[in-house]
């Protein structure tokens, strides 16, 4: 399942934010790799650059220096359009605030990436329902986000992220807004999917529980990776013993 070939690789990535006169070095010469099929947790205190790392590696944000390549393709060389297409076909995102489109029903939210990828309406609908059933929301397909609980909304977000069976799923605090029961269920779901589908998961999180369920934990402080774990050697038990 897990391959030794890296699907994501970052070399010397730096990112600086300027807010008025304050300059924040969000990422400082960060290098690391994620193997295909791996589930990686990026952890660290607030402001350590976790989310920035995720944004930069997924191509949502630009970088000031260094290089990120995904499946051997350099993001730097891709146009905005190409990146968009790439996101639509090969990536899925799960955010802390769910970020469902409030005007669409659960099913329509999940359909969106499918339609974007050029699927026919009928197929898109079937696949969306299938994904929603996968996350346990087969009976909530026609509900608007406002009519769902937080846990349910996050499941829809996950279903949406998985709609196109992307190679990589990015999660930014996917359980951050949830209680422990819901968070546990979501993490179980994610690990199950990781195991069953062999998709790569990169999760930014505060939660040691989440970290404990990942294959490897990357720790960051002040924009620098302080512990990279070892993809081959690090096991879930060793990570959990860290916590």
């Amino acid at each position, binding site marked *: 399942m897990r391959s030794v070939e890296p699907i994501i690789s970052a070399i010397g990535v730096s990112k600086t934010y300027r807010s008025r006169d304050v300059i924040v070095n969000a990422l400082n010469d960060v290098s690391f790799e994620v193997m295909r099929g791996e589930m990686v947790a990026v952890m660290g205190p607030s402001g350590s650059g976790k989310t920035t790392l995720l944004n930069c590696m997924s191509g949502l944000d630009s970088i000031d220096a260094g290089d990120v390549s995904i499946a051997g393709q350099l993001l730097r060389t891709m146009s905005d359009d190409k990146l*968009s297409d790439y996101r*639509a076909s090969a990536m899925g995102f799960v955010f802390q*605030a769910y970020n469902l489109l*409030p*005007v669409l029903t659960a099913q329509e939210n999940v359909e969106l990436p499918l*339609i*974007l990828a050029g699927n026919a309406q009928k197929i898109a609908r079937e696949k969306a329902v299938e994904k929603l059933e996968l996350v346990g929301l087969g009976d909530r397909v026609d509900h608007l986000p406002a009519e769902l609980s937080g846990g349910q909304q996050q499941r829809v977000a996950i279903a949406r992220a998985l709609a196109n069976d992307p190679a990589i799923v990015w999660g930014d605090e996917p359980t951050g807004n949830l209680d422990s029961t819901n968070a546990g269920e979501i993490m179980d779901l994610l690990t199950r999917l990781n195991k069953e589908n062999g998709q790569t998961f990169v999760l930014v999180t505060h939660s040691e529980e989440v970290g404990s369920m990942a294959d490897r934990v990357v720790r960051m402080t002040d924009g620098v990776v302080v512990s990279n774990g070892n993809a081959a050697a690090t096991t879930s038990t060793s990570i959990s013993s860290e916590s």
Partner: protein
Amino acid sequence: MEKLFGIEMDVLAGILAAGTVSVIGVILLLALRNRVLLKLAVRNIPRRKAQSVLIVVGLMLSTTIIMSALAIGDSVSSSIRTTVLDAVGETDVQLESPIEARFGDNYFDASMVDRVRDETAGDSRVDGVTPLIRETLPVLNEATDKTNAGTFVVGIDTGSLDGFREIRDLDGNLADLNAVDPDEAIINKALAEDLEAEAGDTVTLVAPSGRTEYTVIEIVENKGLAGGDGETRSSMLLDIGTIQEVLHRAGQYNSIEVSVTGGRRVDEQDSDDLAEDLQLAFINREAAQTLFDALKTPVVMEGLQAELDESGGAAAGPFASDTLEELVTELENDEVTDEFLIASTNTLTLAIVSGVIDEIGDPRLAQSLLLPMSQLVELQSTAIKNFGLDIAEIVGSQITLIFSIFGSFSIIVGLLLIFLVFVMLAAARTTEMGIIRAVGTKRRMLVQMFTYEGIVYSIGAAALGTVLGLIASVALVQIMIGALGSEDDFTFTYNVTLQSIVIAFCAGLFLTAITVAFSAYRVSKLNIVVAIRGLGQEFVKDETPVAGKRLRTALRWLGGPITQIIDSWRKRRARFGWKLPLAIGIGWLLMVVQNVAAIAAPDVEDSVVAQAITAAIVYWLAVFVWKVYKLVQPWLASGWPLLPIGLLMALSGFHPDKGIEGLASDNAALFTGGTTMLIIAVGLLVRRLMDRRGYREEPQKRVSMTFIGLGMLIFWALPFDALDWLTGELSSGVEMFLLSGVSLVAAAVWVVMHNADVIVWVVSKLIGGFGSLRPVVKMAIAYPMAARFRTGLTLAMFSLVIFTLMIFAILSNLGNAIEDEPDLVSGGFNIRAEIDPELPIGDIDGVLAASGGRLSASDFSAISSQALVQVEARESDSDELVFKGARIIASDDVWLNTNNFKLTHWDPAYGDAPAEIWAAVAADPGLAVVAGNIVSSDDFGGGEPGFGTTFRMSGIDSDLKGEFEGVGITIRPPIGQGSSGISLDRTVIGVMDEFADAFELGSADIYMNPAVLNEISKRPIEFSNHKFQIAGDQDSEEMARLLETVFIDHGMTARATEEDIRENQAQNNAFNQLFQGFIGLGLLVGVAALGVVSFRAVVERRQSIGMMRALGYKGRMIQIQFLMESGVVAILGSAIGIGLGALIGWNIFNAINADVEGVKFVIPWMNVTIIVLVAVVFSLLNTVLPARQASAITPTEALRYE
């Protein structure tokens, strides 16, 4: 302008300014008492500068429209005033002989002048009295072969010109009026241009006595004594002695002019008083006493009183005050009073009196009155300048009124935009507001907070709107000036008064502030939890208190001020917020007490204090009625109570002839309002029924709402007279136009929004085929449909604007029938000519033959002759007793047998074709044909038969076109024209259509055989008008000029019909352009609305956009999505507007067509295409910027944004 909607501009401006200041004052006071709210409100403004600017722009548009309408009215009014002042110059009061030239002699001798001088001697109001001769005569310049057949020739008495010397040459120097020798003349600029004459040239005057020549010594401006009259500007000034000699009028004058101290602009009251004083001085007291005695008999008094009761003093018109009432009142006195004298000099009143006398049927009485009536006035005194200025005023306010009516659609749209802006502003701040409420702020405070912020925007918007309105009106007036071109007799200039600016600013601020307060009230009803969680809520339903609580509230407010006092006293433990309400309550109570006292002793009635006191009671009632409404509102909403209310309302709108006695009040607004309520009631009941049957909410809503929408749509789109069989013909005003437009658009949008999914389905099917667009279409539809209220509002605004533009485009194209078919108006004659009656043409062919080859009889296929005679007429078998003004057009056989005017009604006993009817008139002097306006029901002109001073017939139904049986009329010469005792009976056997002979500008023309000329007057009447039909294809304008030259010795003025049509068309076009520009301002509002919605959408959807980008949407796709959202609203709005506009345009056309033959209904596709293109393109342009902004948002930035 001095008046608007019948209210003095000064007063209106004063009231509005005072209102504005007090409203701002109260708000300021409230704000200072609770500064936290003020801070919260005001600090929001600079927080998002771009948004604040956008809000101000959205808010200012109503003010802009009001300002433009007022400024255009001001400009029209001031331009006419300038024209009037130029024409009458320093003359304020004019005294003329009351006898018309045709029937008698309107010259008088110097003794009259002396009497006027005696009357005005020592009167400080008067600074000059001068006798004149004013005649219209031909003048030619032989050197250039140019003529002006209708020159206004004025003989001036150089010895008495004090007060009238304000005549300047072209360099601006005062002209030397004393130096006019007998062989010299001063001509004005207009005449100089006509004749191509310069100082030193010789000009020839053609008079009945022959030709005389004068050297032009000076050319002066077209002003004052050299200003001509309202119609003709070209003037020539001669010494009085010279003109008296030419006209054989030694020592005689035909006008005495009096100047009131103060130059051109004088105190209008002084003018009126002076005119009245002079009138009193020139009334024959003996005749007045005889008249008084004759009228003061019980039988006449009774008759007059009956007439007064019936007509309500039918003399109402813009200038004829209700003098009949005054006359009757004054007859109660034992002696002749000044008021009686003034009332009895009113010719209209006299006409009514003689009608009443006729009805009494006592020939001796009638005979005894004729003499005193004709001798009553020695000189008719008129405040001529005031008269002209009044016309200017009326035209100006009418124009403003028309612009306001059409503009009110745009103003409504502007107000909707304000509402929309605030709803969106509130939506953007939902979380913030939720938290403010959560920490303990009261709902009332939220309203206050929003109102403070809104007021700041409103003040900025009103100021900016006023400035922009001024700029827009300058541009519009420039368009009008460009289109009208510059003509000597009327110069259109820009003008705006301070009052207008104050009114526009205050009205704009007021309307904006009210809308803001209303919006604030609506948004304050948020649900705290929903708000804090940031869940979408466009509107949260008001929580309805239980019935018992509502009843208690309503009952409590019976107490009015007392309740207010008790309430605020109870709250005294609170730190603040009780003293002011308490004070208000006490003040309110005092006012009410005062008012009750005032009713007991009603002497303070009209004071301002009394008004304020009345306001206190009105406020009390208003609050109470509101609370009662809130009490019954939930029941009303269930539907069934609306049934009886709507039915009652509709029935009370019926015409009394058809409806229930005592209830029916003949009011279209009530009937339509009631019917609309019935439709809504049925719709709501359907919903209830479906609910009982267990249908889900969605289909319930769709069926009932669609029913209501479609019902209203069908009802309001019915032709105007469709329900007349049921209700009777209902009277209505402009409010119906506004009401129907708003109702139709609302109904259409209602239907569309409640069936949006059908449209969505169609659009998806249409565009969805383009694979790559599918995700874009999905989102472009999802957002507008999720925010239905907002989308519906925007759609309504857009539709309303296009609707107005469409109706106007159709209406402005209705009149083109004349252009296509000039014979409709000319009857087949190309040139209309008029000659000086003193210089009749004996032998037309002879004059043509002697023209030296310039013209010959063979140039014309028909030359006809007519005489126009002012008479009075009444329908023989009608209840209408009064003889009213009419004009006989006695025509020779050539005219009667050649004209091809169409007839709308004809008596089949005389033939079926118009030619047969005309031939019958030619053969039988007892027959007549009348102009269309005599039988018109005047749907669009106001007035009805029996009203006003002009002859109308009720015996012929204007709507029932075709065959009818001849109707008898009685004709007599006007009173006091020395032809008493003459009365002729005629049978009307035909009615012409409304366009026929329209350029004769008759208001009541009766066409007859020339035999009438020998019967109607004791003096022979000669033909004075001629119509020419050109044989070949010569240029008719050129021929008209040639005719004027050839017939110069007869003072002929000739006009080509083509020329008139062209000028008419040019004026119409100018007005249309002005109007379209003005309506276009409304379009600006609609486009701005879409822009505002788009800009807001970018801000609101930042996160969603980020997510969509993360999902793989390209920047371009987001951009297309935004453009599509606006495009759908713009296109849908255009479709609704065009459809409904065409429908109402068609209804209006049918209503007009019922009266006027030959009007054509054309949908001006060119205009429509331009309107739609402009609307859609500008909407998209307006969305481009926000769309680009949206597409430029980077996903991480958007997702971080909370």
